[in-house]
């Protein structure tokens, strides 16, 4: 290297642009990888298929959207999944939020053990948890069905909500609640007007997580369902005889709702600049 002069400004731009192009390509590849299965699922919901197998493209139709609710047992399974997801989200969000508040705010006997237990509930393999839940329900003589699925879902969702809320609570300035107290707010008012709004992002995130985990849970539900069928169980069962395109349509609809909720949450998060301080 004899010349160590700086490259001229015009030339300096070129390598940088090439690097950006490489980054673009990589990003697009990654997005494609993530989105392709979903895209195929959506596409085959419009497939004008006539046989039992929905694996080959045979033309465009809206038939499956029109006949979405034709299969009664599928509809029952979807209704089961939705109601279980909603109920377990509600119950686990309330219980998990309270647990997260306690763990994030106070030091108490058993606090560390509780935290460890939550982590175990999250990291425990689903097969193990499902099998042990089944033996527990059998031991207690609880008939497997809708109720046991709900209990199982609430159980594993609580941990996720509690951990999300705790992370939020730990980041809060304890003086803010003291200020509310100082200004005359009793315990309930303080929680309603100050604490809850401040931990709301954590609560919402936890609730979304709980809903998503519940609605597509297969392994634990499989162990605890008895004769009750949820959407994932129905879809799995149908693969033996041929999955009807309605499954793709329902998958598409669930995905669409999820995408909308995520977009709205992200936009709200972007609009409330908690951390930025405008000077």
């Amino acid at each position: 290297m004899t010349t160590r002069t700086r490259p001229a400004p015009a030339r300096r731009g070129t390598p940088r642009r090439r690097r950006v192009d490489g980054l673009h390509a990589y990003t697009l590849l990654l997005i494609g990888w993530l989105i392709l299965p979903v895209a195929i699922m959506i596409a085959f919901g419009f497939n004008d298929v006539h046989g039992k197998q929905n694996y080959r493209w045979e033309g465009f139709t809206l038939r499956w959207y029109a006949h979405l609710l034709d299969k009664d047992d599928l509809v029952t399974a979807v209704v089961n999944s939705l109601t279980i997801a909603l109920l377990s989200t509600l119950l686990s969000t309330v219980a998990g939020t309270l647990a997260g508040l306690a763990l994030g705010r106070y030091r108490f006997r058993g606090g560390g053990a509780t935290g460890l237990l939550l982590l175990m509930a999250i990291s425990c393999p689903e097969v193990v948890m499902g099998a042990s839940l089944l033996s527990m329900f059998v031991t207690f003589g609880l008939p497997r069905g809708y109720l046991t699925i709900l209990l199982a879902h609430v159980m594993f969702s609580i941990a996720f909500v509690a951990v999300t809320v705790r992370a939020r609570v730990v980041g809060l300035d304890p003086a803010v609640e003291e200020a509310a107290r100082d200004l005359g707010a009793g315990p309930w008012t303080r929680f309603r007007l100050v604490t809850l709004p401040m931990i709301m992002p954590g609560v919402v995130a936890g609730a979304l997580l709980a809903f998503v985990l519940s609605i597509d849970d297969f392994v634990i539900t499989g162990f605890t369902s008895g004769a009750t069928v949820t959407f994932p169980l129905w879809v799995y069962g149908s693969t033996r005889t041929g999955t009807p395109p309605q499954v793709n349509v329902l998958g598409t609809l669930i995905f669409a709702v999820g995408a909308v909720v995520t977009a709205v949450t992200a936009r709200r998060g972007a609009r409330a600049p908690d951390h930025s301080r405008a000077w």
Partner: protein
Amino acid sequence: MTETQPAPARDDPGRAVPAIELAGVEKAFRVHGEHVAAVRGVDLEVGQGEFFSLLGPSGCGKTTTLRMIAGFEEPTAGEVRLHGRGVTGVPPNRRDVNTVFQSYALFPHMSVFENVAFGLRRRGVPKGEIRARTGAMLDLVDLAGRERRRPSELSGGQQQRVALARALVNRPRALLLDEPLGALDLKLRQSMQVELKRIQREVGITFLYVTHDQDEALTMSDRIAVMNEGLIEQLGTPREIYERPATRFVAGFIGTSNLLAGEVGEVTGGGSRAALSFGPDGRVEVPVRDGLRVAVGERLELTIRPEKIGIGADEPADGLCGVRGTVTEVVYLGTSTSYNVTTSAGADMVVFQQNATSADDAAARGDGVWLSWDPLHSYAIGAPR
């Protein structure tokens, strides 16, 4: 908890009930199973409308003291009285005092208006009155027109003023301020000091101000309590505390101080004056504060502020104190010049000389000089450590 003293505990005619009163207040915390004393017996009275500061280094117990007055902590021993009424067991939301927190602790999800109106709404003040009082308070702290902003959209100084307005709008009997200017930069802090003093004069509310910044305390306070290791070292006006530091700690913590120790050669004036002997190279007389006992032959330490000391080549006139020394450093500081002098009394001393004229320095490095001062400007603080 005794229930012997209901409502107005003290009824001395001709003496106003103090806004805040602490009697033998102690606070210990359990840290890893051990009791750690944060406050070890504090007695003080803060008068109505007074600007009172608790000054001390971090960990001296000043914030714990404030939190006991606010009600966030209960004393382990002793009693807090607000307007003569014992408030043991009364929660913060039922105490007639409000707090301005060091972190401001504004409600991030509420607008400036909602923040300030929070206390009034809790007390069920009618809507119209809330609007009027909140508006007037935002005027007072110079934030009119920012009602709908969120705290995150304001500067640090503005947030600080919202915190102040949010507390003051409730017209508390006393306002407690916990290092409220600690997070601001120097310029802003200085202008806020003046601003705080103005607001306090205008609203006439008792301020109890906690700070570790001696300038802040000296600038704003009517009286100051200097705290160290859970005890009040000295309580007095800024002038008393600066001019007559009662302990070695106060002398060292507030401003720059020279400490000089020597053997007592003579005690005069019934124990109110002591003369220290330094041989032919110095004579020092010092007033002894009340309650301090001195005896001939014992060692005594005194304190003297650098700006009270004169520096010159000649032996000082009769009636003045003087010690001989050698200049080791001269630092020109603009408004004053600072001299470091090694003295024959065995201590290094610092001397400030105002640069009233543009003449040359009074001494140069290596010069032999006499340091002199009026005995009234020095102050005996006890036996040296």
